[in-house]
């Protein structure tokens, strides 16, 4: 009688072997979570409806300086038993990768392809978490496939503490950051606003925005003080200065443009009502900046010596609102924003780069999203910009940059930290016209874009 295993036994062994591999080889959900989750032991849903949108608790975590933790730590105290070191055993490091493919309705020019695939479109490394009992940081380093370079991305370092004043819970703190509104708690202001992800810039047409809507991102340094009272009233004031980054010196041929003259004051005030499963915020924000050696949307630039550079002055004032309904089965969010900008184009006008001495610009959006069990989601957005007619400044055939477009997106999350999305952007009006906006026959709808992406956070 043979003692060698028969065929059936081999099959059983293979089956159990695979089964064991699957059991041990699959990452446990507790191991595959980003920095804040590692530090707090809280699952994503505690702070997010679906990343990166925050829940009321997520807003409190951010306002409290990213310091809440539930890990082992390395500690030290002085002779008066005051803490002098409180470092988490586990460094709050995480990463994300975005890969996408986009297809535009009509290629941008004869030499371009309609389809663009980016793998990775973006890869980022984060240090996000506490540094001490009262100091925390959100620090992002990003590889961007379009430019092929690695650079410092959104950064927000905070000191925060909490006090009980007359029965009121008062969180107060200071933020050092490199992008106006990156420190904000809501997803209705520019830095963390929707769409959370877009196709790479070579596929998407350039539409002007107000200064606070991304023009200053990562090229400024700001310091602001804030308070968040009873998790409802939020008030913040600060200033921004221009900051040169190693990245921009390397890649930007001319680094002496759009430098903030002195400082640019920034303000933010918001109030959030929370009741049952609902939360509704209404607020205002703004920045005032005089920019030395300004550039224009038409592509002109003043290149004087910075010792005597003339300035264009911009005043941005915005209103925003966010509504959320959050429970286990349903997550609804509605974000809205309107930004108004006064542009005093003293320098550009004198240089012959603007038709008017001053212009106005308005930018607005409204996005509504629905998620089922944080697994399956859909959202619809409407965006519009409009402003003064200024052919020299804007460089468009129509003389203005009035545009409007809509987005529709569906998302699927097989795990809380894996997002698959399909996004369609349709342009109704672009650079002041719906058809032939560039004088060469390109229509607004030729920019319509279908974009599919995979977003992993771990």
């Amino acid at each position, binding site marked *: 009688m043979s003692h060698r295993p028969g065929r059936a036994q081999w099959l059983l062994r293979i089956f159990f072997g695979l089964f064991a591999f699957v059991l041990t080889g699959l990452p446990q959900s507790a191991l595959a979570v980003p920095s804040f989750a590692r530090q707090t032991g809280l699952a994503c849903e505690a702070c997010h409806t679906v990343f990166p949108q925050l829940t009321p608790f997520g807003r409190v975590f951010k306002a409290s300086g990213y310091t809440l933790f*539930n890990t*082992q730590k390395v500690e030290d105290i002085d002779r008066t038993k005051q803490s002098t070191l409180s470092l988490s055993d586990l460094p709050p490091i995480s990463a994300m990768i975005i890969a996408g493919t986009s297809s535009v309705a009509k290629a941008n020019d004869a030499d371009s392809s309609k389809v663009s695939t980016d793998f990775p479109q973006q890869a980022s490394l984060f240090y996000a978490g506490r540094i001490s009992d009262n100091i925390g940081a959100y620090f992002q380093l990003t590889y961007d496939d379009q430019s092929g370079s690695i650079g410092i991305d959104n950064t927000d370092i905070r000191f925060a503490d909490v006090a009980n004043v007359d*029965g009121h819970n008062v969180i107060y703190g200071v933020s050092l950051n490199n992008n106006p509104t990156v420190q904000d708690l809501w997803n209705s202001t520019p830095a963390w606003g929707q769409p959370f992800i877009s196709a790479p810039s070579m596929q998407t047409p350039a539409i002007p925005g107000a200064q606070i809507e991304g023009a200053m991102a990562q090229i400024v340094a700001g310091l602001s003080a804030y308070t968040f009272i009873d998790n409802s009233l939020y008030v913040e004031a600060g200033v921004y200065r221009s900051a040169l980054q190693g990245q921009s010196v390397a890649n930007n041929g001319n680094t002496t443009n759009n430098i903030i003259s002195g400082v640019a004051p920034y303000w933010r005030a918001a109030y959030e009502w929370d009741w049952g499963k609902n939360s509704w915020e209404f607020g205002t924000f703004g920045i005032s900046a005089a920019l030395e050696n300004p550039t224009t949307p038409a592509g002109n630039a003043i290149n004087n010596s910075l010792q005597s550079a003339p300035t264009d002055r911009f005043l941005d004032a915005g209103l925003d609102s966010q509504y959320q309904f959050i429970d*286990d089965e349903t997550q609804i969010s509605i974000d809205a924003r309107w930004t108004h900008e006064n542009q005093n184009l003293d320098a550009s006008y004198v240089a012959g780069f603007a038709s008017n001495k001053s212009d106005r610009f308005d930018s607005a959006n409204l996005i509504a999203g629905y998620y089922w069990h944080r697994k399956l989601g859909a959202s619809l957005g409407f965006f519009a910009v409009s402003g003064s007619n200024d052919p020299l400044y804007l460089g468009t055939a129509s003389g203005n940059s009035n545009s409007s477009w809509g987005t529709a997106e569906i998302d699927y999350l097989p795990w809380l930290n894996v997002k698959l999305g399909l996004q369609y952007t349709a342009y109704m009006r672009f650079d002041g016209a719906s058809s032939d906006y560039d004088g060469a026959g390109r229509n607004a709808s030729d920019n319509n874009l279908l974009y599919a992406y995979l977003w992993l956070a771990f």
Partner: protein
Amino acid sequence: MKLRLVAILVAGACLAASLAFAEDNAAGRAAEAKATTTCQDCHGPKGDSTVATFPRLNGQQADYIAAQLKNFRDHSRSDPHAQAYMWGMASQLDDSIITELGKYYGGQTPTPPQSGGALAAEGKKLYLSGAPAQNVPACATCHGAHAEGNSIMPRLAGQHADYLKKQLEAFRSTLRENDIMHANTKDMTDSQIEALVSYLAND
């Protein structure tokens, strides 16, 4: 001589007692600090939460709170919200702060149940007399005549309606594991759960 000895012993006992009290006091202060800076972000000031996902803790039985915190810490309670929120929050708590947190919340003023309508009357009957047909015993036997709870059996009166409903459903389906509560709820109907919640809860 004897008197001196007695005096020394008494003084020693007083010192030991005051040291123990000071330590309790330190743990008590630490628990209150934690409750007012961390726990209240979800559970509300003094435990009176405004969101049904996070149960009210004000006036809850101290022993029940301590038992649940230990269950979160050792992962023996593993329903989805326990894992998502409380496993992390309880992971570093030691036994003395757990005891003090229970005492802190136990000492707060509880929220009364809302006065309900017809469904609440049915719920009251169920609460006080049970439903023999579905093997549901009278809840009052363990949870008290006024649903105020007793030691490790929790106060139910004044809890969020949606939270109570989800716990009863979780006991019924064993999503939240508890042999006794599973036996009590496994044949409970949805309308019985609605009625009970209507009687006990405060939205």
